[in-house]
Structure formats: structure tokens, C-alpha cells
């Protein structure tokens, strides 16, 4: 059975796989393509196309799927109520796989499809790569990637819902100062999400006079993170800042039990991912994070109920984000019509106190010089208690 060429073929293929695995160390970009177009009830006028760019494959696929469901649900509701100005909304939902090249190609696709606005995406490197194409196509883009480097490009067509990494870090520093936390350990994941935030964290902490007891990294797909947590514990840190996306927080929760960590873990807003509680249960009790959603807002309760009627499980944060993004665009379309430039000008001065994101009474606001809608101070602190997160009062 063993063919003389088998050894060579095997060595070739395995070497290729090993090189790919090595190359993947420190990154988590996957790419694949897929397409979903959502339409609902017909309106009187021409359909209004909105491009939606999501990483429906790759590491962020779970969250992207939840957001896709939310957009589809909301678009169906809008169209069932005569759409916008008598026209139906058509969501052109596309998968960028977390890949910047695919993301740039999608801008051209949305442009050719006549999209009046583009929603997305999650990954900062993709949004940054799309910036020039967006500028050339002149399509307003509402991104929910959190990299503050997006705002630094000052692209007049790109808006971020926020809070950005810088916004969340500012909130973290405020909390640390109020609670006498002076020596946090910083642990960032080795994906683009973590590596992008690492210099922002370091600069912000240095500016605030906080010297980290440890500054280390971890892989998002690590089976066990107890080595790095033990380093944090032995460094004399009084808290651990873990910068990653969603499910790895569950691995940190169990790792904290394994090394008897004894100090709190502070995560990003994505620690609200329902998978954290599902995977870690009560072990997640030591995790704190800032959430852009205040569950006590009546509008939040309303959207929660609509989601629960349609889908099983806990309402994900993505459902709320999707609601806000589509609300902003639809409000704009109703006010200024289907013109891209007019919509961009509308967004430039958009202000709202009725969106789901933000504290009660907080304001979501874009200005010509600030394209981040939700500032860092406009979030709500949460903590996991018995496998569920709950709002906590902070000093």
C-alpha cells in the first residue's frame, strides 16, 4: 500500500501545514466568502440597499452570526411597517472572513450595488484597509470595530459606534483610580484585536501613571491559560486586565480557579458574550467589564422581548448594536433621503439620547471632529454573579 511517493507527498503537505501554523502564530485572520441577501416586504419606491460587512467565517463568526440575525429581524420589522419613505430596505449581507483584502473588495461590491450606507465590520484591520476605498466611493460607513486607530485616520465617511478601545481603557483607568488599583497585569491576546489594543493600553496606563506589574500575551485558542495567570499572580498584580474577544474569557475563568488567582479580572465589553456564561458558569464570577448596554432602559427591555420572541437564549449585545446602527441610518434616510453625501452630513451632527447604547440619560453623539458615537464614560460596569452578568455600582 505504501507508495514510494507517499513519503515525499506527506513531508511536503505536513511541512506546508507546519509553516502555515507557524505563520498563524500571533494572528487569527481567516478568510472565506459567502453571501446572504435579505429582503422583506415590498415598498412603494425603489429598494434602498444597505451593505452589511460581517466576518461570518473565522474567529468572530459566532458574534457575526448573532448580529446578522439581529439585522435581518430589524429589517423585516421596518419593511413590515412600510419600509423607509415607502421603500423597502434591502440588506446586502456579505462575509469578509476577517480578511482585509476581502473587506476592500466588498466596498466595490456595495458601491456597484448602489448601497446608500455600509454597516461594519468587527475587525479593526479590515476597517482600516477599507478606509481609502470608502473615501473614493463616498459611502458613509458605520463601523463597530473598536480600534481607536480608525478614528485617527479622520476619514470623513467613517463613523464608529464605540466605545473604542481607548474609550474603554479610559473607563478602566477611572475605575482603577477610584478603587485604588495601582499594579494591574496586562494580558492581551495575540490576534489583531489584542495586538492592536496593546500599545493603546500601554500608552494610556503610562499617561495615567500606572505601571503594570506584568505585560504579557496569550493565544485566543489556548487550551489552558493558567501559566500566564500564575505569572500575573506572582507579579504582585492587584488586578488582571484581559484584552480579548468573547469565549476566551471562559478559559480565563477556569484558569483563575486552577491557580487560585484571588484578584479580579477586567475584560473588554465583549466579555458580555453569552458564551462566557455558557462555557464557564459560576467560574466567571471574578470577571468585571464595561457594557455599552444598560438593561434598565425601557427600550432595551423592548428589544430583548422582540429577540426572545424570535430566537432562543440570552439576548446578545449584538442585537442591541444592530438595533442602534439601523436606527441611526433609517432616521437619516427619513430625514435626508437616499443621497450618500446628505446622509454623511446628517451623521456628522447626529445626536441621540434614545438609542439603546449608553447609560440612562447618556448621549450618543457624532460631531464633525468626533466620529465615535459612544464615549468611554458612557458605559455601565458589569460583573458576573452566579454565571450571569449584572450591573454594579462603582465609586
Amino acid at each position, binding site marked *: *500500500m*505504501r*507508495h514510494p*511517493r*507517499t*513519503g515525499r*507527498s*506527506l*513531508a511536503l*503537505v*505536513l*511541512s506546508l*501545514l*507546519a*509553516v502555515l*501554523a*507557524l505563520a498563524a*502564530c*500571533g494572528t487569527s485572520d*481567516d478568510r*472565506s466568502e459567502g453571501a446572504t441577501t435579505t429582503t422583506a416586504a415590498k415598498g412603494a419606491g425603489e429598494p434602498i440597499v444597505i451593505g452589511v460587512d460581517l466576518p*461570518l*467565517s*473565522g*474567529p468572530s*463568526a*459566532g458574534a*457575526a*452570526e448573532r448580529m446578522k440575525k439581529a439585522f435581518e429581524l430589524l429589517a423585516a420589522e421596518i419593511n413590515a411597517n412600510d419600509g423607509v419613505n415607502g421603500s423597502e430596505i434591502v440588506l446586502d449581507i456579505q462575509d469578509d472572513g476577517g480578511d482585509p483584502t476581502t473587506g476592500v473588495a466588498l466596498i466595490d461590491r456595495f458601491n456597484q450595488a448602489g448601497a446608500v450606507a455600509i454597516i461594519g465590520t468587527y475587525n479593526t484591520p479590515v476597517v482600516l484597509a477599507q478606509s481609502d476605498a470608502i473615501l473614493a466611493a463616498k459611502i458613509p460607513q458605520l463601523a463597530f470595530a473598536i480600534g481607536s486607530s480608525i478614528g485617527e485616520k479622520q476619514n470623513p465617511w467613517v463613523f464608529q459606534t464605540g466605545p473604542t478601545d481607548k474609550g474603554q481603557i479610559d473607563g478602566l483607568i477611572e475605575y482603577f483610580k477610584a478603587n485604588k488599583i495601582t499594579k494591574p497585569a496586562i494580558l492581551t491576546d*495575540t490576534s489583531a484585536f489584542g495586538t492592536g489594543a496593546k500599545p493603546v493600553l500601554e500608552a494610556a496606563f503610562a499617561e495615567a501613571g500606572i505601571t503594570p506589574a506584568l505585560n*504579557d*500575551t*496569550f*493565544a485566543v*485558542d*489556548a*487550551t*489552558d491559560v*493558567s*501559566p*500566564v495567570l*500564575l*505569572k500575573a*499572580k*506572582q507579579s*504582585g498584580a492587584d488586578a488582571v486586565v484581559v484584552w480579548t474577544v468573547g*469565549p476566551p474569557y*471562559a*478559559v480565563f475563568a*477556569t484558569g483563575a*480557579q*486552577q*491557580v*487560585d488567582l484571588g484578584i479580579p479580572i477586567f475584560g473588554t465589553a465583549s466579555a458580555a458574550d453569552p*458564551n462566557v456564561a*455558557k*462555557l464557564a458558569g459560576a467560574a466567571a464570577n471574578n470577571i468585571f467589564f464595561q457594557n455599552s448596554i444598560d438593561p434598565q432602559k425601557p427600550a432595551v427591555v423592548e428589544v430583548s422581548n422582540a429577540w426572545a420572541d424570535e430566537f432562543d437564549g440570552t439576548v446578545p449585545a449584538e442585537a442591541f448594536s444592530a438595533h442602534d446602527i439601523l436606527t441611526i441610518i433609517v432616521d437619516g434616510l427619513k430625514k435626508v433621503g437616499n443621497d450618500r453625501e446628505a446622509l454623511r452630513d446628517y451623521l456628522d451632527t447626529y445626536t441621540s439620547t434614545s438609542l439603546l447604547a449608553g447609560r440612562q440619560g447618556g448621549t450618543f453623539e457624532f460631531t464633525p471632529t468626533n466620529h465615535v458615537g459612544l464615549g468611554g464614560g458612557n458605559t455601565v460596569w458589569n460583573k458576573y454573579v452566579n454565571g450571569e452578568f449584572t450591573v454594579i455600582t462603582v465609586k
Partner: protein
Amino acid sequence: MEQVRERRVHGDHGQVTELAYFVVIGLGIGAVYALSGLGIVTLFTGSGLLNFAQGDLMVLGALTAAGVAGSGHGYVAALGAAIAVTGIAGLLLGGLFALPLRQRGFDIDVVVIGTLGVAITMTNLLGIWFGREPERIESPVASATIPIGNFFAPMHYALMLVGAVVVFFGMRLLMRRTDLGLQLRAVAAGVSAARDSGVRIVRMLIVSWLIAAVVGGAAGVLVASVVPVVPESATMLGVNGFSAAILGGLANPFGVLIGGPILGVTESLSGAYLNETVRQAVAPVVLLATLLLRPRGLFASRAKARTV
């Protein structure tokens, strides 16, 4: 004061218990690799074929079990369902690759490359069928831990090691003590000679796929209690399994049983005493180094003498 106290606690004795803890954690991670690698070695020793979709078979088993366990059935029922589903998948894959050989002759390269295509297809199909949300299966020993000084290693790691040993001895028994095992070894040793001896080649190839898939399914269920599994986990499980199998020797199940833990402990100690970059590089570097320096694996001489 806190730091001083920590230093006292972590004196020489503390360093020893810390080292012991990381070795135990490494053995647990190594058990994941060994379980991944055993499926690959099982097919290789039974047919001489390599399967790059082994990680996907593990994920199929894990996600099937998670679905069954999530609907209120117990761990054993979930394991049974995983074995049944992956067994069917193994039969289908076996038929896909073995039956055309009857008409067109045998080209092992086509099969090896074909399994890469199957791997990509399976990952996408698993995403469509099961979704992209990570799943974890509650271990029957979920609340139990192994205390090591001030540390607590999950008891499930021990269960995975036991699982890997059970799979190894099960395969050894099958290959050495049964007529079926004899025929499988004959096919792996050479198709022409096996055919001349009256062995039904296609049937044996399908049986090999079936066994490898079932081993993968059971391994996937065990692994899913410590690793949140998504369809894309197949790549990580597959690469680590290959690393363990290549290190131990592709034709040597005992080798993978040792190679997996060696990899796991090396990774664990690298993460603990060096840094994360080194830890992540361990598996691919070991794979490359073994292919270049000792292509038959660490246990080459024994592999020549016996397959199981």
C-alpha cells in the same frame, strides 16, 4: 508585604509544586494531542492512508455530543451519539475514497490530497449544521480537581489520559488479536500481497475509515470538556494531532501515546517559564524538526518491528 509573603510561600517547595502542576497540565494538554493523533495513526496503521480531515471528525463528534447533552441527555448518551454519527461519517468517507479505487486503481497521493478537500468542506458544513457558537460538554468529573500544592488541575485531564490509553489498548487488541486486525495490517503492509492472500481491499479500507472516525468521535467528546469547540477548531486539533503522530511515529500508536504528552508538557513548560510566542511555536517547530531530522519519529526502530 504581599510580594514578600508570596516569595515565602513560593520557596523551593513552591517551585517544585509549581513545576509539578505545569507537568500535570502539560500531560492533560498532551492527552488532547494524543487523542487527536491516535485517530490519524489508526487509519495509517490500518490502511497506510493519511487523513487531514481527522480534526473535523473530532469536531463532528464533539458538536454532536454537545447537542445531545444540551438536550438533557447524559454524557454516555452523548458519547454514544457521537460515535454513531462519526461512524456513519467514517463509512461515507471510506466509501468515497475506497470504492472508486476498484475501477481506477490506487493512487495514495490523490487520497491524501482529497482528505484536505474533505477537511475544508466538512468545516464549512459543520458551520452550517451546528452554527459557529463554541460548545463545551460538561465532563462527568467537572467539579473534581487534582490538588497540587496551591494549584488545582482539572480531573478531566486524567480522564483524557485514561481515554487515550484505553483507545490505544483497544486498537492494540483489535490489530493483534483479531482476524480483522490481521487483514488491516496486511493491507497497510502492501496492497498486492494482501490481495493475493484473499484480503478484500476495499472492504478493509472502509473498515479502517470507520475505526479511525469512531476513535476521532470519541476523542472529540473527551476533548470538548476542556476546549470550547467550534468548526474551525478542526485545524488546531488536526495540526496538533499530526505533530504528536509525527513525533511518535506515524506507524506507531504507542509513539503517539508518548508523543502527545511530550508535546503537551513542552508547551506547558514553555508557556510557564518562557513566553507565549515560544509556546505557540512548539507544535509546528516540533513537526518541522521531526520531519527534517527523524522523519520516522522518535520511536522509529520499534515502528519497523510492529505497527500496533
